[in-house]
């Protein structure tokens, strides 16, 4: 065979391959969106039916919370206190529905660590109040700020004593400043993330919807990876496993529960899992948009006798049932109702396995944060 003829073949080969497949690398504008496997409609619904409204709700709650903080600090009284305490819990419940969206703008602005690092360092907070040096912008201040720090300042003692701390205490003025700064910080950060998603702001919605595929860094890759990582480190470990002593040689750590001062861990965990389930399903089982559930369903992946999509949904319910079955406040339940808490842990463990193994396998998503050679 002559040099020329092989060269011709080589060029023809490359040209054919390029013609056949190269257009795939260029994004086309008028792509069909009717196909069940096209991610476009799923991504739009997830953004419009869940993520964007959930961020706005939390922003609203944090603005209400700031108002209550202002009323309370201007005039600390039993009535402004009660109102503030209730608004704080409302905001906390709203937070539970967005905290796990740990990707995109929320990841860039480290929203989770800024708003909900628990356990909070109550001693460091007291030292900061006494010295009057309030700096919430350092990485080392994650455990002195956000909702857990507010929980400590507002629910850290009986109502009367707390009101006293904000009126008659020698450091009352500093304490007010600290509380006001906390509220301001929460509003600022949730506003940043909410803005980043909006069309007039960063329009991350546009980026999110356009970023198709399942590779590292694609929207589905980001969602599934952040979800499974969050379930592992924050749903299973931080909320149940760590208090139960699963990560500390079997020795329980009551003070590490979420919402320690309001004794509301179970209600918080329950609204967190409910949020996860709504994010997965988008709405109620009879009326919902096209979410992760539907995308998993479109792959027709099975889980034993049932569909994987349904099996995961059922596991969210199972986890919810097991968590809500815990009667006592979690800091007591970990020793007095060990078996119930352990069952909740097992249910969450199964949820971790299902997202990390079955779900990512069915979607062909690389559970990895690093690009790599494959073969």
């Amino acid at each position, binding site marked *: 065979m002559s040099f020329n003829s092989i060269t011709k073949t080589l060029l023809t080969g490359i040209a054919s*391959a390029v013609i056949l497949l190269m257009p795939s690398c260029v994004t086309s504008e008028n792509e069909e969106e009717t196909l069940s496997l096209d991610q476009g409609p799923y991504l739009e619904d997830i953004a419009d039916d869940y993520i964007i409204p959930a961020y706005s709700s939390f922003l609203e709650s944090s603005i209400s919370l700031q108002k209550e903080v202002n009323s309370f600090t201007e005039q600390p009284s039993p009535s402004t206190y009660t109102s503030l305490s209730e608004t704080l819990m409302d905001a906390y419940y709203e937070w539970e529905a967005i905290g796990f969206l740990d990707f995109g703008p929320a990841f860039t602005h480290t929203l989770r660590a800024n708003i909900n690092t628990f356990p909070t360092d109550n001693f460091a907070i007291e030292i900061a109040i006494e010295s009057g040096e309030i700096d919430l912008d350092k990485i080392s201040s994650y455990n002195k700020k956000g909702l857990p720090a507010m929980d400590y300042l507002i629910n850290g003692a009986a109502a009367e004593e707390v009101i006293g701390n904000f009126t008659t205490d020698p450091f009352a003025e500093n304490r007010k400043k600290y509380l006001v700064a906390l509220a301001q910080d929460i509003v600022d950060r949730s506003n940043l993330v909410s803005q980043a998603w909006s069309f007039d702001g960063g329009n991350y919605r546009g980026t999110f919807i356009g970023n198709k595929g399942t590779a590292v860094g694609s929207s589905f890759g980001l969602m599934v990876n952040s979800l499974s990582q969050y379930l592992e480190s924050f749903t299973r470990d931080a909320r149940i496993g760590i208090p139960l002593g699963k990560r*500390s*040689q079997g020795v329980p750590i009551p003070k590490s529960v979420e919402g320690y001062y309001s004794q509301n861990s179970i209600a918080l965990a329950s609204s967190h899992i409910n949020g996860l389930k709504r994010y997965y399903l988008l709405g109620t089982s009879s009326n919902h948009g096209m979410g992760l559930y539907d995308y998993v369903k479109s792959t027709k992946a099975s889980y034993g006798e049932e569909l994987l999509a349904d099996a995961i949904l059922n596991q969210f319910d199972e986890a919810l049932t097991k968590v809500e079955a815990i009667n006592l406040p979690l800091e007591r339940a970990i020793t007095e109702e060990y078996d119930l808490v352990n069952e909740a842990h097992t249910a969450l463990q199964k949820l971790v*396995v299902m997202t990390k193994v*079955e779900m990512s396998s069915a979607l062909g998503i690389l559970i990895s944060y690093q690009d790599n050679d494959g073969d």
Partner: protein
Amino acid sequence: MISTLKNILSKPVSIAPLITFRVLFGFMMLCSILRFITKGWVYEQYIRPEYHFTYYGFEWVQVLPPLLMYAIFGIMALAALGIMMGWAYHWSAALFFLTFTYVELIDKTYYLNHYYFVSVMALVLVFLPLGRVSFFKPKEGPIFSHIPQLYLLLPKVIIGLVYFYAGVAKLNPEWLIEALPLRIWLPANSHLPLVGPIMGELWLAYAFSWFGAIYDLSIPFLLCYRKTRKYAFFMVVVFHMSTWLLFPIGMFPFIMIASSTLFFSSKWHRSLWSLFPIKSLPTDRTIYYSKHFKSKALLLGVFLLIQVLLPWRFLAYPGKLFWTEQGYRFSWRVMLMEKAGYAIFHITDPLTDRSWEIYAKDYLTPAQEKQMSTQPDMILQFAHFLKDKLREEGLSSTEIRAEVYVSLNGQASKLLIDPSLDLSTIRDDFGHKTWILPYSR
């Protein structure tokens, strides 16, 4: 018989195809290494991890301090350049083989068939007499245009083996009858314009599976015959470019396309080199002669025999190969299965009767965790690593059990290993791992 073989092996053939191979191989390796460094993988894969999964029998291969690791990659890049340009050829080839293989042996997390292929080829290159041809400046001493056919046949046979064994590995019910795992992987490309809409079609997964198997099994032969070579090379380009566009497959497609030029006629290669200012490719016929030819032939023959036999060692183990992975590596099983897993390590201290859990994320990088969670030998290694860690913390009586869920080809996950066994008391060896639970669908 022996004399026929001797005649075949020592028959003089043109050195030109091997010079093309040498230059392309060196160039591709240089690109791969620079790509590896610029992507930050030296840090990510070798400096950042706290623990490395060494190969059985190669536990003594340890990672070096960060600066030296970068130095190793620097030397590797220079050696690749040396291979390409023909500078101190044999030294360059040997240095490249040693540095590359050293890096690969540090951690089996990053095992890839194409890395293994590079190691094998680099070792072969060390023994090939390709050092007399260099760019720009003719070398002093004897130069030659022809070499014994052995040196051309060996790399061709190895490339043939890679394809053929990759094809044999595809002859299994999952691949052929169920189109697994391609029916899981292809829909992930549905976002691609033009070809995207058909990626979810089941017939396409079957077409790709069957075409892939037939391609792998036949391509070495089609490349050998003069009449089919042109079409075969066309298929090589189409096949590897498709895999490059559809899967995260790195430099492998280009290495294979470049390697298949070895099958072209020497006339083609000579025409190619006549286009370049290469000074020392002689036009008159001079034949390379070595008085060690016989012993070299014997050595390379033994090496080839090992290459032929090694992929069959899985037959010595009971159970499903994809599940146990006993004899899976170094056998050209390329992109054969979708496997994912999650491992929970249960620690019990009989002294205090307390129990707790350890997860891979506490100590491993995501890439390491992903590989460890599905491969029994790595799970055992990690259990022993944990045992040492706990001993350092003063907990020397702990028992370590693993609850590992693995999903194979999209099936619901099952337990991979017996969760009742204390892994810290089990030693790894070449025997059958009885602590792996049997596969069930």
